[in-house]
């Protein structure tokens, strides 16, 4: 499972504020809070160790 999720996540590549992952746009935490507030959407937050 983590391999699959890792692939899902790894496709985003960098720590950029907005990263494109297939069809998913990943935001950093502060930007995510701002967008969630503006769009009234919930947040799906991933903590991921890249070491």
């Amino acid at each position, binding site marked *: 499972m983590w391999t699959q999720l890792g692939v899902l996540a790894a496709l985003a590549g960098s720590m950029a504020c907005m990263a494109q992952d297939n069809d998913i746009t990943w935001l950093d935490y502060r930007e995510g809070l701002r967008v969630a507030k503006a769009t009234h959407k*919930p*947040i*799906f937050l991933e903590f991921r160790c890249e070491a």
Partner: protein
Amino acid sequence: MLSPKDSLLGKQLSQYVCVRVVRLDDVNVGLFERDWNNAIYFFMLNADEQIYMRYGGRESASPDTYNNMESLEVALKQGLVLHDQYLKGEWKAPEPPKPLYPREMPLLVERTFARHACVECHLIGDFQNLQREQDGVLDKLTHLYRSPDIKTIGIWLDVPKGLVVKEAKGAVAAAGMKPGDRIASWDGTPVWTFGDVQYRFDKVDRRAKELHIGVERDGHATELSVALPPRWWWTDLTFRQSSVDPRTDFSDRPLTDEEKAKLGLKADGFASQVKYVAEFAKIRGAHELKVGDIIVAVDGVERDEFANTADLFIKLRKKAGDSAMLDVIRDGKRVQMKLNTHVLSFRK
């Protein structure tokens, strides 16, 4: 492509704002408190930083047991239900935990921030325990043996279905849990995922004798009182590669009552038989134990409130780097030998 827009997962994720955190420098780790030895972990929450649920968690044997796409879809679906309740003002937010930021952790500042190194998840847990040990407040039952294993109390989940029970054995079977039940609460707190269950199980007082698990069965809610077995909190620490536990370079198994009686040992003692000796034990000067040796006492002590083996006694009662004198039965003769534990050095 694992999450195209037209897949179920893709459709679900499009209803969320997706956020990724890969270093914890400025994260409120108090809010997202968890077992930090999970390399990947998820939260569903709202813009007011109120957490709906967790997704992730592992057992000692494998990081993959409780996580798959199907159970993630179940969790994401439930997250949307809870968020809808929040938007309607019908969701009761949990009490927020005390904030904690990595820069408030002296050892992390000294050893990680000062070197401009990455504040990785596991470092939070590692340095919390080191600090607790330095401050004399490390409770090993709670802080070292994190994330108790639900299999210890007899729960095998039908993982793709979320918290639906596949098999109920031991303590939970005795309490009335049945295959097909859906676990709905843990000691009174609603749970939606394995991550929630593991987090709540970790919060149970290690000296507790009973646990209350709410289940849904055929549309009805039932609460089960589960009698916790001895050492329900115990887990294999091996995968925790930066733990503060004293490394002993051997593993053992408890002697049976019959074996103890045959050797004339105390029935309630922690006498154990060595079943594995690390390759480098002798080179490291750790000890000269051999497979088959029976450890009867450590520093003259033969029984303990919690330990059922010599290894567990040492892990609970000694600090990493401490030495101890072992009473050992080898080839029918009782001998003494010294054991030197060692500290597992941190990766970062």
